[in-house]
């Protein structure tokens, strides 16, 4: 399924079999890429840095959803509800008990895991559309509980959270946040990547393709479904908690159904069944509205510029249009395009792959 990296099969030990990066080219390009990411905050302005942080937050959430939908094949429309659960756990623990970062983050992860179990229970009986609908219903219930807390405690506009303290210094600077989020996103991707190579990850792929066959092969279908939901929602709740700290503010309005759709769009636009797809999708969906806005601003003379509500509407419509275009014309997403480009280069001067490969 992957394009060939090295010519031939040279693995002579188990350690080599487990390597993530195999060839020298891969290692060199990875080091260059990592160095570029580390140097980024010193090249970017404040606005671009905020965008980069948003992208990194979205990468965590998108990778979590990719594990669930792209690999295990369980459709979830409750992603925003899980993000909200993480954010509200953090907000409530901070507001009621003044809990520090080191307690709120694991607590959010625990709440996420418990909710994942609850979100996953319908999947034992329901499939496809009905499962999607049940997660949608749970989304509304979680959001309702969050807004109920807000109104009951009198934080009707939202819960304000102070910047967290890590090792004695306050995490308030966007540049410091960038490194924390970069570490979190890289950690999520590494965990996901390795999880997918284990027994659990292979079980997820098996139940995605055909549940009956997976069961016949000795995979516990129920266990695999529940573990996919639990892992995915734990990661999502952690992303929600980080989101709450980064914004310094939790409010139920931020977790609308549209947020769920945005995350689903990241998975679709990036490309189903690929972690690279989750990253590409996150970058695309987060940057898309800003690209549209600056495109309009560049195209029109300043005198003709419409007000912000028109920008909002145009963004909305363009987002729907792009999603439709991807679903209709490129269901494999950005990764599908990238693979085709790779194949074109690798096969040149030929056009078709040899049969049977």
């Amino acid at each position, binding site marked *: 399924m992957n394009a060939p990296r090295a010519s031939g099969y040279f693995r002579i030990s188990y350690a080599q079999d487990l390597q993530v990066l195999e060839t020298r080219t891969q290692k060199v390009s990875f080091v260059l890429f990592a160095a570029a990411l580390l140097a980024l905050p010193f090249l970017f302005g404040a606005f671009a840095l905020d965008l980069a942080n948003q992208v990194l937050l979205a990468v965590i959430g998108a990778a979590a959803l990719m594990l669930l939908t792209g690999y295990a094949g369980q*459709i979830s429309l409750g992603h925003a509800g899980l993000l909200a659960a993480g954010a509200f756990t953090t907000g409530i623990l901070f507001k009621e008990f003044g809990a520090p970062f080191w307690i709120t983050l694991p607590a959010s992860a625990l709440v996420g895991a418990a909710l994942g179990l609850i979100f996953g229970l319908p999947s034992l009986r329901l499939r496809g*559309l009905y499962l*999607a*609908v049940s997660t949608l219903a749970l989304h509304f*219930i979680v959001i*309702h509980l969050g807004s109920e807390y807000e109104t009951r405690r009198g934080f009707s506009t939202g819960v304000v959270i102070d910047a967290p303290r890590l090792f004695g210094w306050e995490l308030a600077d966007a540049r410091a946040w960038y490194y924390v989020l970069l570490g979190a996103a890289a950690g999520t991707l590494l965990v996901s990547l390795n999880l997918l190579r284990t027994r659990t990850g292979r079980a997820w792929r098996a139940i995605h393709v055909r549940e009956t066959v997976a069961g016949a092969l000795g995979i516990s279908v129920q266990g695999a479904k529940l573990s996919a939901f639990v892992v995915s929602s734990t990661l999502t709740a952690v992303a929600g908690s980080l989101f709450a700290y980064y914004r310094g503010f939790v409010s139920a309005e931020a977790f609308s159904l549209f947020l769920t759709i945005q995350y689903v769009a990241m998975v679709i636009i990036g490309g189903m069944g690929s972690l690279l797809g989750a990253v590409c999708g996150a970058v695309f969906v987060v940057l898309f509205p800003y690209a549209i806005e600056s495109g309009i601003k560049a195209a029109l003379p300043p005198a003709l510029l419409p007000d912000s509500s*028109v920008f909002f509407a145009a963004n*909305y419509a363009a987002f*729907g249009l792009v999603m439709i275009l991807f679903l209709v014309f490129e269901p494999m997403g950005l990764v599908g395009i990238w693979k085709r480009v790779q194949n074109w280069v690798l096969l040149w001067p030929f056009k078709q792959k040899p049969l049977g490969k």
Partner: protein
Amino acid sequence: MQLAVNIAVLASVYALISCGYVLIYRTSRVLSLAHGELMMLGAYGLFVTASLFAGRPLVAIAVSAVLALAVGVLVYVLLMRRMAGEAVLAAVLTTIALGILLRGAMMFFWGAYEQHPIQALGLVNASVAIGDARISAVALTLVFATGAAYAGLWAFLRYSVWGLRMRAAGQNPLLAAQRGIGLHGIYALAWGLATLTAGIAGMLIACDSALSQTMVVIGLKAFPAALVGGLDSLAGALLGSLLVAAAEVLLIHYVDPLLSDVVPFVVLLAMLIVRPWGLLGSREELDRV
């Protein structure tokens, strides 16, 4: 008494909207999550025709109904036709994306302000007394419109040739196609009828209260009603709407008004746990999804 009237009105709203979900699902096995937006588009259609045909409200209503039908057919021909045979998720996501596109386009053209098409039509929403309860004239019309829509749909599916074809296509598309039924035509008709009923619901709601962005939420809340009754049964949609509306009105009245947005989904979840195929739905549908 007032509570019973409120339940009847809300149940009619949900029933009129949810028959569209049922029509599309039972014919083509696609769940349309753009229904709320299509409903709002119907209401904006009335808003536009009302100013075009000022002083002739009946003409305006008729033209906007025809427009809604045409929009539904166009949605199928231009977009959903391409998704035929794709995975369930892809089709549902396409309708979600369509909903976002429509919502953005409507905000773009008409802004996010509240509109009152009934003023543009030149009609007055009088209040009617039934016993000791009061009901607005438009809401009463809505109840009757729902009854008429269900009776019409029932007669259409039961007695007309196209209704027969539609039922056949829903039961077994392959056999229906082999028998010479044009599936694309049937699906387009189902989308057209669903959008028409949604459009009528949208127009009446907009006339009763106001035309605003919150209408989409009503469309989404009608979906649990369809599923509680069984996604492939019209009678089920009616029953489910009554159930969901009763639960919502009673809980709002006796417990907490803030529950309004969440009650239909709690009912939905309870139903999915106990009887996922719905009250009157057919059981084997579940594995086909």
